[in-house]
């Protein structure tokens, strides 16, 4: 069975600092990989996704993520965070065969950006 681990429940950074949110997955086959963001009192918005190819994928609002097969990871990065980036970030996977429409989410990482 597939699973997603986000080891950091909460991350606090200063505005303008760089950011890395960690995500590790467990799967017998490399799944499709996603990062979603949940702003306060809202649903989920897709930041970026990885299917294949270049392991570094660019997303919206300056976010990028790097896939590492050897580490089974898909960490999210941003060079310089803004206070508006404060939100909960979810890493998710979906299988490449079978039920490809099912997303399996991690527990999320709450990002707090301090002024």
């Amino acid at each position, binding site marked *: 069975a597939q699973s997603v681990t986000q080891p950091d429940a909460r991350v606090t950074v200063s505005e303008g600092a760089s950011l890395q949110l960690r995500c590790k997955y467990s799967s017998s086959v490399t799944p499709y990989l996603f990062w*979603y963001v949940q702003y306060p009192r*809202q*649903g*989920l*918005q*897709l930041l970026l996704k990885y299917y294949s190819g270049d392991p570094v994928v660019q997303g919206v609002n300056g976010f990028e993520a790097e896939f590492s097969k050897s580490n089974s990871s898909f960490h999210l990065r941003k060079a310089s965070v803004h206070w508006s980036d404060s939100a909960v970030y*979810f890493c998710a996977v979906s299988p490449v065969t079978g*039920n490809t*429409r*099912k*997303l*399996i*989410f*991690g*527990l*999320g990482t709450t990002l707090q950006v301090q002024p």
Partner: protein
Amino acid sequence: GALVYQYPRRTICKSGTSMRMECQAVGFQATSVAWYRQSPQKTFELIALSTVNSAIKYEQNFTQEKFPISHPNLSFSSMTVLNAYLEDRGLYLCGAREQGKTLYFGSGTRLTVL
């Protein structure tokens, strides 16, 4: 652009009663719809996947008897929480996609059970 609307945004129901939530896709054909629940302090769990003209597939721990879903056309889906109790509270998200394309989520319906 593609958007997914969910309503109501928030709802409160008494324990043992039922409530219905709706999901509307705008700007694309929602050939499949996924309903997720985010319980307090937890992540998102898939309740069921619905594809137009196919049977609705429920995940373990979720049943049609408790969460009946309707997906009558390519722009609309609804789900009812029957006989709601405290453990059913949370944020219910609808995700819709056109076949082979990006999944879009609505803003969710937040259910409070008194």
